[in-house]
């Protein structure tokens, strides 16, 4: 299918957008939010892969560009898997437990986008006071 205008080119480009965001996420900027998801055996057994996919999907749906997802190993909270930690700029890192797919989407919409904590799911609020 030959491309006959800039708009047609842009359409193809948009189809590739998810891929581009993921690749470019390597280039951290200052306002980048880091989302760490425990993907050890315990996490996967509890559904961390589904949570990961849901979070990524939500990020793409919301069109967020400043989020970097890092898959990490076991954080030691196997009883509360899937575990998700959010490091947002100017906020203390927060650790959430029992993050289902829906909770994952909520984290994106509330914590990342509005800087509101999901109080019910918080495992650790401040790493300094632990």
């Amino acid at each position, binding site marked *: 299918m030959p491309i006959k205008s800039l708009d047609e080119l842009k359409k193809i480009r948009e189809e590739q957008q998810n891929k581009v965001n993921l690749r470019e996420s390597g280039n951290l900027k200052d306002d980048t939010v880091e989302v760490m998801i425990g*993907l050890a055996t315990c996490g996967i057994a509890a559904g961390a892969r589904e949570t990961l996919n849901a979070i990524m999907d939500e990020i793409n749906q919301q069109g967020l560009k400043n989020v970097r*997802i890092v898959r990490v190993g076991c954080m030691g909270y196997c009883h509360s898997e899937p575990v998700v930690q959010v490091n947002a700029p100017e906020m203390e890192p927060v650790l959430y437990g029992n993050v289902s797919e829906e909770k994952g989407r909520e984290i994106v919409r509330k914590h990342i986008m509005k800087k509101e904590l999901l109080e019910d799911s918080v495992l650790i609020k401040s790493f300094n006071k632990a």
Partner: protein
Amino acid sequence: MSTYNSHILVCGGTGCVSLESQQLLDNLKAIVEEKGYGKETQVVRTGCFGFCGEGPIVKILPDNTVYVRVKPEDAREVVEEHIVKGRQVDRLLYKGEGDTAQNDRDMEFYKKQYRIALRNCGMIDPEDISEYIGFRGYEALGKALAEMTPEQVCATIKESGLRGRGGGGFPTGLKWDITRKVPGTEKYIICNADEGDPGAFMDRSILEGDPHSVLEAMAIGGYAIGANHGIIYIRAEYPLAIKRLQIAMNQAREFGLLGKDLFGSGFDFDIQIKLGAGAFVCGEETALIHSVEGKRGEPTRKPPFPSESGYREKPTCVNNVETYANIPPILLNGASWFNSIGTATSKGTKVFALAGKVNNVGLVEVPMGTTLREIIFDIGGGIRDGKKFKAVQTGGPSGGVITEADLDTPIDYESLKSIGSMMGSGGMIVMDEDNCMVDISKFYLEFTQDESCGKCTPCRVGTRRMFEILERITNGEGMEDDLHNLEQLARMIKDTALCGLGQTAPNPVLSTMKYFGHEYEAHIRDQHCATGSCKGLAKYFIVAEKCVGCTACARVCPVKCIEGKVKDAHVIDQSKCIKCGACFTACKFSAVIKP
């Protein structure tokens, strides 16, 4: 379409492919499938990451983890640990000076780099046009055709300050504008991919890692100068680059980005590939054009310049691969963006192929104005094995050596010329205390006298005579007036040779004579080569006091010229010695000394 949550990027550049990265890629794909992650994890072959010294390189996104020296058999561990369990494979991380770097931001190698020409290398799959389009590919061409006149395209490139990256440094926008203004309906635009400098591989890497950027830029150039036909002149020694170019051209035609009526603008443009036999002189534009025409690859006098009478005696514009790779970002981001990078006279960035006695061998792209010290010691990680830096050669056989004293010079076209070297295409060969400078200049002269096309006498005969003198000096048969003769010959060749090859061929000799004159003198007067590189001068001795009589040297000597009893000091018979240095390497007591 499946949504991938992670990508495994595997380097598919020639350097890494020769280290079995293709097998690694296949293994990764198979194991990802086997583990049931095929819908979540995409394995992508990309172009060169530039960190060739530590290849094959694997990068995992979004974590941004960089693994180095990954072997095909490591694939299972990478997938099972990193992808399935989310644990980094520590033993495959890059261990530089001091700390282990997890990702590219921590690596000194990438910190000072700024990638424009290499922007997509190591980022996209070069054999998939949709990935290129995803990264704003062909948007610059669309923009040029839809919103700009050819005059405006030329003006933008002129304003950006982009200069030819092949070495000459002629302003690209001006070249386009001159060719545009020459009347005629039949014009040609040529891509010079005849990368001939020993040690340079930036053009190959761009073509292998991001072929579409060159195709797009050629179409833009074609539109700007009024050419409907593009030719890529590439040496047949680059099979992978040729293959990827062909794939890219076919895909571009399918998408209507090459061929008739691009973007509905009425502008037709197509490209053909012309293979060269790999002659150094064919990097010179007039020789290149003759070779494309099927004639002998010999230069002709300029003027007339190719912009007036080039391929088939029609107006022709020849630009280098790296120059083209800079074009699309300039049109997308504007001339003032490009203009803001670099020094007063040289804008943008330059890619260098870092090679020789440096820790991080590879491809680096830095803003103009970066110092050589930053490139060699910060990005390159310093000299191998803790040896002492001696000199760096830039500009290949046309350039000169740069010593410690000039390491803090900010790099641009003019500054390098002022310290007796040149930008060249970007080869950068680092030499340490073990390199003999006479031997180095002999190496370059051997190259140029071999590559001389033979058309003009100064180059054909002159470089040969210079090589003979150098050969004599390194064999210990140097004469007192050799230095004088070398210099006179050099100046004469520079002044009278027909093309750039001959005019610059004496540069390595002149610059080593200037900075390392004492080495030449030592070779001639004292028959002494301090580094032991010149076999004709080398003399190996055994220090009797240090020798414990272990017989290690006598056992490795291939010509059995070392005599001595066990536990007695050994002696080398100089008349039989072939100066192979095996005894020097074998001795554990530093009793054998060279030269």
